[in-house]
């Protein structure tokens, strides 16, 4: 009899809670929109055998939206950011023009980053929380998916800070790293991309 009562109590109190709570969480995430603000920044670091370069976009010119929804085991993101290749500044006019040429700016003036997933719903606290996700980067008309490690936090103004970093290669996008003087000056294939997105969350 005692076992029966305990079982009934469990069925009445515990079981619904375990069923309902994740659904409540998913509802909280479902239909959320993240607005990527104009203050976001992106930096591409690379090197040649004679110098290092850092090409950045310190003020993102657009406002893009990312929709966030709950998937089966991860957060599904849809949307992304579009970056004008002309906005890159390598702090050296010749290097800036060289990068634009290498990225085939005339044919493909925009670089796109589509956010696909996050491995979990972030807690969104002031402490940066490590989180991983998938993105699809399109450069010079070639799309490629990458895992990205992020750190996500929120500040006092409720602005979400998404900091990410990822190494990519010119060759991933069928681009040839520039070489000069018969190959004596050679740009290395690897590029390190760092970005800092400032996001405002809006419930639908």
């Amino acid at each position, binding site marked *: 009899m005692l076992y029966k009562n305990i079982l009934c109590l469990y069925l009445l109190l515990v079981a619904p809670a375990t069923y309902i709570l994740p659904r409540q969480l998913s509802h909280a995430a479902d239909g959320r929109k993240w607005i990527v603000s104009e203050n976001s920044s992106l930096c591409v670091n690379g090197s040649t055998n004679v110098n290092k370069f850092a090409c950045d976009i310190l003020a993102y010119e657009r406002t893009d939206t990312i929709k966030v929804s709950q998937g089966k085991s991860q957060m599904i993101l849809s949307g992304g950011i579009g970056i004008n290749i002309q906005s890159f500044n390598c702090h*050296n006019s*010749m290097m800036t*023009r060289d990068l634009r040429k290498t990225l085939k700016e005339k044919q493909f003036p925009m670089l796109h980053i589509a956010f696909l997933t996050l491995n979990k719903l972030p807690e969104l606290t002031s402490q940066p929380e490590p989180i991983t996700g998938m993105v699809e980067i399109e450069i010079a008309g070639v799309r490629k998916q990458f895992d990205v490690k992020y750190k996500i936090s929120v500040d006092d103004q409720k602005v979400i800070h998404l900091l990410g970093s990822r190494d990519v290669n010119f060759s991933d996008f069928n681009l040839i790293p520039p070489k000069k003087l018969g190959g*004596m000056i050679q740009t290395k294939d690897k590029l390190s991309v760092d970005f800092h997105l400032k996001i405002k969350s809006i419930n639908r």
Partner: protein
Amino acid sequence: MKKILIAGLIGGCILFILSYGGLFLAIRFFPKLFTEYNNPLFNSDGSRDMLFYLHAFIFSFALSWFWDRFKALFKGRVVLRGLEFGLVYSVIALLPVMWISFSALDITVAMVLSWFIYGLLQAITAGVVFAKVNP
């Protein structure tokens, strides 16, 4: 004609080793001098690498012909003849080309000066070789 070709070939081989060896060492030990070459002005897809490396031979054959025509004007010892020949070539051909290059292209003074000095040293080397091989 045979003398011109032989002197040109020997000069080309020596210039090839000295020029590209020197360039390789300069890039290795003074990399900062070469950062300006990351510039779309310079071919970057490797399609003209062969032409770039043939430059020493083109330069040497052209100067070999010039030497053969005017060698009687350069008097004195081998090194002195080579030095004068290099200076004459640099003033007549290099200086105006560098001048127009700097005025028309988006390149720095340091870059143009380094090209002038590089060309001057190449021409002096070629002059010394020609004074020895085709006196």
